[in-house]
């Protein structure tokens, strides 16, 4: 089993890349707010899902640490045997492919709806794919270096977008709290957890950490940071948009449209959109990289680079065909995709842990796997 590339990433880069994974859906789709019948409580849902996601991230990190230098594709084959392990790997890959397709479509739609409606959506998808393929081919190290910087930029702009429309914000929009009871929180929590399930990507990243023992720590940081930003986003969106928050297609974009400082600093949402493009590019690059490396490991190929562009070339038509419209995409993301993601992630982790337990029962003493 080969590692397939010599790049090593630092803990901070690892954290940055994971945070981006969680942030991109927030910036584009924000299905937590749109799926909530009570958008005022979305921020509570965000906190709850963050809290639930921490143990999940820790579990994956711990699991990956047991198999140093091996990605989840590889060690699932060790734990569960070649057949079942490959199956788990395929499930992981399919899940990642689904996510990539979602992102591509979401970004294309976001631009087509909001900024340049006349341009055909394929243009945005193709350009995004070119960017991300280039980054993915350059290797994990390059990708995560950029991710580190992009986190600063995007995080800053995110906070700016959340804070600057203060003219339009009224905090009483956030009351009453939990008017419809805790059960109304379930859809947004599930939607958010669906995105946190993408942290199963940790399984692909841990082998490349320069200091693997930091994996758990930085994974938790990633959850915390992205959780904080998401919560801030929920609060701002509802404070500014009130009960209308869940009727917008792109809530964060509509929030940015309200920025109006003096007469001169207005209507800058296109610039904010540019920031989202950077983060989406990083996330897509990461996923393309992970899928290519995963396929290469599954089928014992020597190099993963030749796979990147063809994969993207396949994803784009898939993205075009898979959904009817952005509304369809959002609906899918918050309902079917979220539930499926949570189930898959939980099932995979559970299966792997069970397999681990069974192995140590059947073959005691074989603790460290090389």
């Amino acid at each position, binding site marked *: 089993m080969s590692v397939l590339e010599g790049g090593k990433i630092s803990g901070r880069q690892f954290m940055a890349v994971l945070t981006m994974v969680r942030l991109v859906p927030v910036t584009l789709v924000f299905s937590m707010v749109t799926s909530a019948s009570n958008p005022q409580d979305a921020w509570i849902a965000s906190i709850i899902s963050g809290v639930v996601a921490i143990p999940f991230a820790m579990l994956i990190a711990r699991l990956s640490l047991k198999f140093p230098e091996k990605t989840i594709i590889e060690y699932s084959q060790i734990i569960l045997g070649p057949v079942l392990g490959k199956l788990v790997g395929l499930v992981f890959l399919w899940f990642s492919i689904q996510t990539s397709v979602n992102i591509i479509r979401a970004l294309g739609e976001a631009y087509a*709806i*909001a900024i*340049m*409606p*006349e*341009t*055909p959506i394929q*243009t945005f998808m*193709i*350009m995004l794919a*070119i960017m991300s393929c280039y980054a993915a081919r350059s290797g994990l190290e390059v990708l995560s270096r950029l991710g580190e910087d992009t986190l600063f930029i995007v995080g800053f702009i995110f906070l700016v977008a959340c804070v600057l429309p203060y003219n*339009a914000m009224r905090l*009483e*929009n956030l*009351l*009453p709290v939990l*008017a419809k009871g805790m059960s109304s929180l379930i859809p947004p929590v599930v939607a958010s957890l669906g995105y946190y399930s993408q942290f199963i990507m940790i399984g692909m990243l841990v082998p490349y950490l320069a200091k693997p023992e930091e994996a758990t720590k930085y994974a938790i940081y990633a959850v915390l940071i992205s959780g904080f930003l998401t919560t801030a986003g929920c609060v701002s969106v509802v404070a*500014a*948009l*009130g*009960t*209308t928050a869940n009727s917008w297609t792109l809530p964060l974009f*509509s929030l940015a*449209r*309200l920025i*109006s400082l003096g007469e001169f600093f*207005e*209507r800058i949402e296109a610039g904010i959109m540019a920031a989202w493009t950077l983060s989406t590019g990083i996330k897509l690059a990461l996923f393309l990289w992970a899928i290519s490396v995963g396929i290469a490991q599954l089928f014992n190929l020597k190099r993963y680079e030749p796979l990147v562009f063809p994969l993207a070339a396949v994803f784009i038509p898939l993205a075009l065909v898979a959904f009817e419209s952005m509304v369809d995409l959002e609906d899918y993301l918050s309902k079917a995709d979220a539930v499926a993601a949570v189930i898959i992630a939980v099932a995979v982790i559970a299966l792997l842990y069970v397999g681990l337990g069974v192995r140590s029962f059947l073959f005691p003493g074989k603790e460290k796997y090389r």
Partner: protein
Amino acid sequence: MKPWCILRAAATVLLVLAVISSAGCWSRREIQEIGFALLIGLDHAAEEGKVMITVHIAKPFSLLAAGAGTAEEKAYWQVSSTGRTVFDAWRNLRQQSPRRPFLHHSRFIVFGEEFARSGIREALDFFYREGEVRETNFVVVAKGAKASEFVWGEYELEPMPSRGALGVIKQVAQELSTIVMVTLNDFLQMMEAEGIEAVASRAEQVWRPPSQDPRGQLKNEVIAVSGRETGAAAFKGDKLAGWLDKVQARGLQWVRGKVRSGILLIEQPGKENKLASIEILRATSTVTPKISEGRPSIQLKVDAVGVIGEVQEYLDPMASEEIWASMERRMAEAIRHEIEAALDIAKHEFNSDIFGFGAAFARRYPKEWDGLKRKWDEEFPKLDVEIEVKTIIRRSGLTRRSMQLVRRKEEV
């Protein structure tokens, strides 16, 4: 590098170039091809069932010339078009305009009175779904006129009526507080939320008889009609329910806590029939809903801070302790009077909860609100509103006591 490598690279580059360069032609617009619409007006069209949309499109050259003082013609072009829906009317504008009109830079939306009275829900969807109109536009309802007539009004000091009207609205909202300044975002939220009804700014046309008012020369044309923006338009649901005048509108702003500054006229203590002007520095308000014995009531607390701006008769505040306190009491009285005027008209004439009392209940007592909201139309007029006004007069300006401009002896 092998020759075919170079060929392949060149082909890729060319392909990408071709894609990119052709891609641009869809969304690209040269800036000269665009007509910037600066305001939007909506009315019923003359024909049955149609909507008329009126815009002012800026004429860049003339605008620059107007700024330089060498204007030959108006800096904008007013054009209207009709259609069965708002979007339809908007698109039909292309039939008249050689440049593609764009709504990105519009600053406010005017509804004609008739149009507003008949219900604007159908029209509003265009404004928030289509991306061109920003939610930071202000919403204005024209009293006693159609929007297309109202926007004829011009203002001195501004070549564009849209900027003129907006300037007036901002000034009044900040310095007089007798107008409600509502953005489209607020307007939509107020309409959608339960327990609060929407308000908008009120604007009227003011005709200036040319013989009496020769100001405003724009190529020998006198400004015949101008606009006056003050007061508020109250909606019930999506229909215009009625108007609030200056006093009532300020009463509404006291309740909403949006009073920035203004003048309260009170009678000077001890010298009735002489007025003092108190300038409001700042004010806050708290609306607390209460339910006692199943009966809802509102406790309204208003805190205001003022400054003595002007007195008509000699005033020496230190002559007796009562004077200052008395002025504060009278100030509070004036405020209360305004609030009651607003409450009165909203409760009894329009029966429209423009203050958001219902929403306050929804926030504080969600369970009881569920029951109340169905009967809010009956409950609202009966709602007990306890008004508590606390006022402080902080300063008296540059003078401690008035100057004794007239000797105490009575002089004719």
